[in-house]
């Protein structure tokens, strides 16, 4: 008899109610105000005019938004391309048990505990030619490095900062996946004379698939809404080289105070996230269930 199905019990709604109230208060109410603003022109608190989808059309045509969206996609894909493989490699090199393992885990996870603006500050100092170790060394090596002046340097510095900040998350997830592999698989591989690569390709990778899906979901989403670190490091500069979606939206909403377009843009931004999340979540579930079926067969 397969493990009995979870029983259906509508009374469970009472248990979920508190969460619904909390998250509704902090998500649905605000979302309603955004929708409200996105279809009106607010000239002054008293005078509001219904404008339908005008703001949405304007936002869609906004060149600067396209630039920001394109830079954001480039950045998020670059983040995945670097952090996923680096995270896996790091997980593979981490000791499995004992105090060494805990020590390495804490050291590696340290960067995840730092407030996001402090990460920006650290790299802001670290990269400066006059007072930063990195900036100073690069200058000494004759490399004219300036993350405030050169857009390419700025983009790469933001990328490396994100890699430095978030790769441990991927490493920890991959490490958790590795630790769930029973020892018998490694023994069988040794008995079959499998090479190190074969062990990775046929045992470790398939077993890490589920957690790597979570890593991709988390890393893509979090990088897609990055704001604080680039804002503190480069303020989005030079020019708009490192201005990504969240910063562009904040400038529009708080900066220029034109609520309509900002609200419309917020909704579009939210829908893009919802869509990507839906695709990745379902892919993860199908992999999860496929994985679970194997476990039961």
């Amino acid at each position, binding site marked *: 008899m397969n493990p009995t199905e979870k029983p259906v019990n509508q009374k469970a709604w009472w248990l979920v109610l508190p*969460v619904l109230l909390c998250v509704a*208060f902090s998500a649905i109410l605000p979302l309603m105000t955004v929708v409200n603003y996105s279809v009106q022109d607010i000239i002054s608190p008293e005078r509001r005019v219904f404008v339908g989808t005008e703001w949405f059309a304007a936002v869609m045509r906004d060149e600067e938004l396209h630039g920001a969206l394109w830079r954001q996609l480039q950045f998020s894909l670059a983040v995945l391309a670097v952090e996923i493989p680096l995270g896996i490699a790091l997980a593979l090199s981490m000791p499995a048990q004992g105090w060494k393992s805990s020590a390495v885990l804490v050291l590696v996870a340290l960067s995840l*505990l*730092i407030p996001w603006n402090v990460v920006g500050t*650290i790299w802001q100092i670290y990269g400066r030619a006059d007072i930063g170790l990195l900036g100073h060394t690069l200058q000494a090596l004759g490399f004219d490095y300036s993350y405030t002046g050169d857009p390419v340097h700025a983009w790469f510095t933001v990328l490396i900062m994100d890699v430095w900040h978030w790769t441990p998350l991927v490493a920890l*997830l991959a490490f958790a996946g590795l630790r769930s592999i029973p020892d018998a698989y490694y023994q069988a591989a040794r008995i079959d004379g499998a090479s190190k690569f074969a062990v990775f390709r046929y045992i470790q990778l398939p077993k890490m698939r*589920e957690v790597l899906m979570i890593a991709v979901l988390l890393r893509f989403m979090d990088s897609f809404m990055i704001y604080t670190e680039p804002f503190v490091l480069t303020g989005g500069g030079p020019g708009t080289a490192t201005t990504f979606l*969240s910063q562009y*939206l904040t400038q529009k909403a708080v900066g220029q105070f034109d609520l309509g377009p900002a609200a419309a843009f917020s909704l579009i931004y939210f829908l893009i996230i919802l869509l990507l999340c839906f695709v990745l979540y379902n892919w993860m579930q199908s992999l999860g269930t496929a994985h679970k079926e194997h476990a039961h067969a």
Partner: protein
Amino acid sequence: MHDQRFHKRSIFLAAYIIFALLPIYWMVNMSFKTNEEILSSFSLWPQHFTWGNYLTIFTDPSWYSGYINSLIYVAINTVISVSVALPAAYAFSRYRFLGDKHIFFWLLTNRMTPPAVFLLPFFQLYTTLGLMDTHIAVAMAHLLFNVPLAVWILEGFMSGIPREIDETAYIDGYSFPRFFVMIFLPLIKAGVGVAAFFCFMFSWVELLLARTLTSVNAKPIVATMTRTVSASGMDWATLAAAGVLTIVPGAIVIWFVRHYIAKGFAMGRV
């Protein structure tokens, strides 16, 4: 493990750890220098070691009040998030009910919502409620991503406990609340600890909402730090010291949950 392979792996690991710790070391190094020494000479070790920067932070109310404010709203948020998430996680872990899949997905999307999207509405909402510049405002705002995270982590830990234990308790005559407190909670102690740690951490590190919803008497440390960035002369030394102090709480707490870090980050899925 053959020596040769082990050797290569530990070099790679050592290299990464150096890469990870260098920037932090550089900030700590600066936090013990005076501004003059920072700007005048470049040295790997503070020549004139000083506790001055830390002293200013611990004496200047505009600095240390930032830490206190942060700790207050982070604590409130963590308590609310975990206590609200516990019953919900139990419901998701133990029962199927109308729309349970959709709610679970909706919680995920909330965890993934960019704070920037809710910047404006929160500002509006809390001003109309008269909650602007209070700890409660920031604590409530952070529920947006912390409650879903807590539910995910706790549901993962709870699913590890066989359902037959609940049934045995009901058979023995335990009522739900008594069973939940006396038998179930001790079994997921680790899960509650990990969920609390992650709520603490994600609330502590957030800047955008915390800065927007506060001005004076609830201003968090993360906000005071960005203020000095735009000040006239760059007060690097104090900034570095403040930065170091923001890492300390996380570093202390992580040691207690070090065995479950990975499971927590995977939102309990592993």
